[in-house]
């Protein structure tokens, strides 16, 4: 038999496909052909594999005709991680290497890029590939040594972290594994002097005095996964409070953790030895960022954007009206459906993007306009400029934002008096965890986890408001202060408010609070009793 099959995987968005690398080595005009819709980086594999075999592992069948077929052949393929599978299949198909018979390759998957010397270099996306392999019944996998830990996160998978092609071959044949120089871990290394990394870890909600209603809005947003907009003049603490949102989110569940880690793996930003990401991620792209960086894409590989990297975490878009119009527009999909599809030519990749989206905006371009009485506010914008800026805050995106919160300037150095002491992140997180537990119980047989994702009609039918609360909300609709879409959002918010308060079904109090949270009208303020639970 002069052909062999080795398995590897291809990633399309977050979906992994099992790829059969079939190699035929037979007499004929000496040549090497690689077929199966391969892109440039993959077609270079011919040369990498030939050199690796020659230098590390016997001889390339230079006098034979070598045909390499990647199947399914109609799936576009790119990337460098096919190298090992191709090399092993060539070795097994070539009769010159008798001990490595094609049947030894059954049940294995091979992932890794080869160097000229036959060393295995790390590749992005190992975790999602191994997850996909496990789903297709493969239980043994070769990966580059630095990524063995990452691959080992998948339960039930036997992982072999190897340094060279010769080692792969030796393991397969069951002979003694030869020595090989260690593999270069990854091309990136953090700047030695950069020490800002741990900054976010030290933050706590207790650092912020006042802003009680904003803290409450953030708590509800975190509990139900509601997109949140913070509007306020410069220096009122919008960023400070947004940065602290991850501190009130519960740890990721194992399932979520695998999803997030896999996405980071695809993007190639997983630090070596970081293991599963347990804490919700935090991403805050600058307002000059391109659509490819925020939503995904890029030249060559379709990389997940920050909106996907922040999956199950927080995506903070500060100075939202200053973002590029195409980014603002494209945010619609992740806000609505919790995923993002990047279509390019015939290629379309879909990544999950169910992050807590937090937007922040100034009330005017210069950021000094308070919008209420209180003497000179030092705003230099004209009415026209303000109106133009405000227009960016309206429109279809902002219809999809559940919570609108005004962040007002705080009086100078006010203490707490006999009011309840400022709660720490841990206190709030405990309530958020409770609220999420209630949602998990309620939605245990459903496809969604959080209130913000419940489809409107299902919500109406299975989890209605109390009749009085329903009446209150319909009244707003009749008064023209709420749209139909807004009504559904208020309904979801009312459930989150109830979940935070430990109430079994939203009544008028919860619906009232939800209406205020949803309203962009700065003159509507939350009931004080909801915001500060304990007075002393």
């Amino acid at each position, binding site marked *: 038999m002069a052909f062999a099959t080795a398995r590897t995987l291809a990633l399309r968005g977050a979906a992994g496909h099992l790829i059969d690398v079939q190699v035929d080595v037979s007499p004929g005009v000496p040549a090497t052909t690689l077929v199966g819709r391969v892109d440039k980086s993959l077609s270079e594999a011919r040369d990498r594999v030939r050199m690796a075999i020659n230098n590390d592992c016997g001889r390339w069948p230079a006098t034979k005709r070598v045909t390499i077929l990647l199947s399914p052949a109609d799936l576009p393929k790119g990337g460098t991680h096919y190298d090992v599978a191709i090399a092993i299949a060539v070795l097994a198909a070539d009769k010159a290497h008798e001990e490595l018979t094609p049947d030894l390759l059954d049940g294995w998957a091979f992932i890794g890029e080869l160097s000229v010397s036959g060393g295995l270099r790390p590749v992005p996306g190992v975790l999602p590939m191994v997850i996909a392999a496990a789903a297709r019944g493969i239980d043994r996998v070769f990966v580059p040594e630095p990524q063995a830990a990452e691959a080992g996160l998948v339960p039930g998978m036997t992982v072999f972290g190897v340094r060279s092609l010769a080692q792969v071959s030796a393991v397969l044949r069951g002979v003694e594994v030869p020595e090989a120089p260690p593999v270069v871990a990854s091309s990136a290394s953090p700047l030695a002097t950069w020490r800002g990394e741990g900054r976010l870890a030290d933050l706590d909600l207790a650092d912020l005095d006042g802003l*009680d*209603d904003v803290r409450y809005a953030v708590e509800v947003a975190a509990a139900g996964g509601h997109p949140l907009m913070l509007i306020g003049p410069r220096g009122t603490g919008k960023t400070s409070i947004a940065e602290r949102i991850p501190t009130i989110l519960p740890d990721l569940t194992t399932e979520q953790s695998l999803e997030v880690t896999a996405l980071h793996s695809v993007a190639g930003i997983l630090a070596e030895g970081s293991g599963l990401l347990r804490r919700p991620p935090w991403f805050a792209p600058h307002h000059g960022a391109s659509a490819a960086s925020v939503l995904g894409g890029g030249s060559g590989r379709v990389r997940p954007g920050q909106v996907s990297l922040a999956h199950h975490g927080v995506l903070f878009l500060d100075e939202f009206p200053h973002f590029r119009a195409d980014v603002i527009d494209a945010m619609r999909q992740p806000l609505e459906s919790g995923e993002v599809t990047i279509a390019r030519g015939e290629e379309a990749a879909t990544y999950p993007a169910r992050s807590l989206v937090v937007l922040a905006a100034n009330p005017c371009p210069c950021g000094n306009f308070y919008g209420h*009485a209180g*003497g*000179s506010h030092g705003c230099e914008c004209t009415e026209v400029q303000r109106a133009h800026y405000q227009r960016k805050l309206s429109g279809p995106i902002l219809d999809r934002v559940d919570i609108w919160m005004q962040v007002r300037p705080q*009086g100078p150095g*006010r*203490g707490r*008096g*006999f*009011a309840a002491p400022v709660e720490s992140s841990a206190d709030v997180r405990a309530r958020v965890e409770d609220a999420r537990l209630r949602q998990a119980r309620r939605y245990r047989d459903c496809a969604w986890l959080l209130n913000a994702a419940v489809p409107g009609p299902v919500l109406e039918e299975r989890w209605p408001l109390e009749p009085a609360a329903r009446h209150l909300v319909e009244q707003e609709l009749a008064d023209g*202060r709420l749209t139909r879409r807004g009504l559904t959002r208020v309904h979801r918010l009312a459930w989150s408010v109830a979940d935070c308060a430990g109430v079994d079904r939203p009544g008028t109090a919860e619906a009232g609070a939800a209406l205020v949270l949803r309203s962009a*009208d700065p*003159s*509507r*303020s*939350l*009931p*004080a*009793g909801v*915001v500060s639970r*304990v*007075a*002393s």
Partner: protein
Amino acid sequence: MTSADAGLPADRAARVSEADRLARVVLSLAVEPGDVTTSSLVRQLGPQGAVREQLVPKKGSGLPDRIREVDPVRELEQAERCGIRFLVPGDAEWPPGLDDLDHVDSVQALGGTPPGLWVKGPMPLTELATSVAVVGSRTCSVYGEEVARAVAGTVAAAGIPVVSGGAKGIDFAAHDGALLAGGASVAVLACGVDRVYPQQNRRLLAHLAAEFAVVSEQPPGSSPTRIRFLARNRLIAALTRGTVLVEAALRSGALNTVGWAEQLSRSVMCVPGPVTSYVSQGVHVCFRRGGASLVTHGSEVLEVLGASGQHLVEVPRGDIRPRDELSRGDQLVLEQVPVGSPAGVVSIARQTSLHVRDADAALRRLESAGFVREVDGGWRLAGAR
């Protein structure tokens, strides 16, 4: 009833006879607060006479029995041990404002000067002569809480004690705001001054009793009831020179306090809210009824309460722009100076119906003020390029 010669501090007994004081203790313990019959009996017959009159058995009334059960000397001693004093009219510390209650009509069948006041705390009630009440809804909004805090803070910082009802919501914010500003605050309760209601305000009430004063017409140990809250409201209005209302729904008890303040000819000040807000509806009704001053800041409360011409508040205005200060003629000319291609003085004069000489003079004035500049072919606005 026991005899009247119990050992009481001599200074208190100086102007009020012991028998009268003990009779008032009896009335305070036996009669529900705001009982108009009792207060008018006290007015006509004196406290002892009132007690005697109420002892006459009436069909269906348990009052005589209740009066007989009371041991006023023991009650006073017990109160004293808890640091609670009992004030009666005629005492030096008795707030004279309360006497006004005998001269106005009753509201909801409640009214009259209370037989006495139970007070806990070091602050003499004479200091309430300048005080102001800040009251409002218990279920207030964040807006109401912030305004109440700010108003109470400004007022208290000016040395004026802030009186409120010690309840949740606006009451709490008013007390807390006054204390944070370093001022004085007094709570008037519907229960005994040794009781804590509501529990949430435990720390606040303890602080007020330790540093300032907690006041009630209810004897120690009594519990709060709906009627007692209504009766208490008249004391808040009577003890102060004016009442500030921050957020009240249509059925709020705070509206009752405002009603009393109106009856007693005290100043009524209201802080408006959004017209869409449920918790400000009662406030807006007050405005529409007339008689209430609109206040938006503590300084405006000071202005209303101060003597004529004192604490005047500067009227807030929009920015004054340089254009506003031009004469009417100059403004007319300025309107006709184009942004783009310059216009000659003759055409400007024609459009403004001015003599060329006057238009030219106006343009020169506007030029020196920096509004317009002369270029080849005429005049254009200085800001334009």
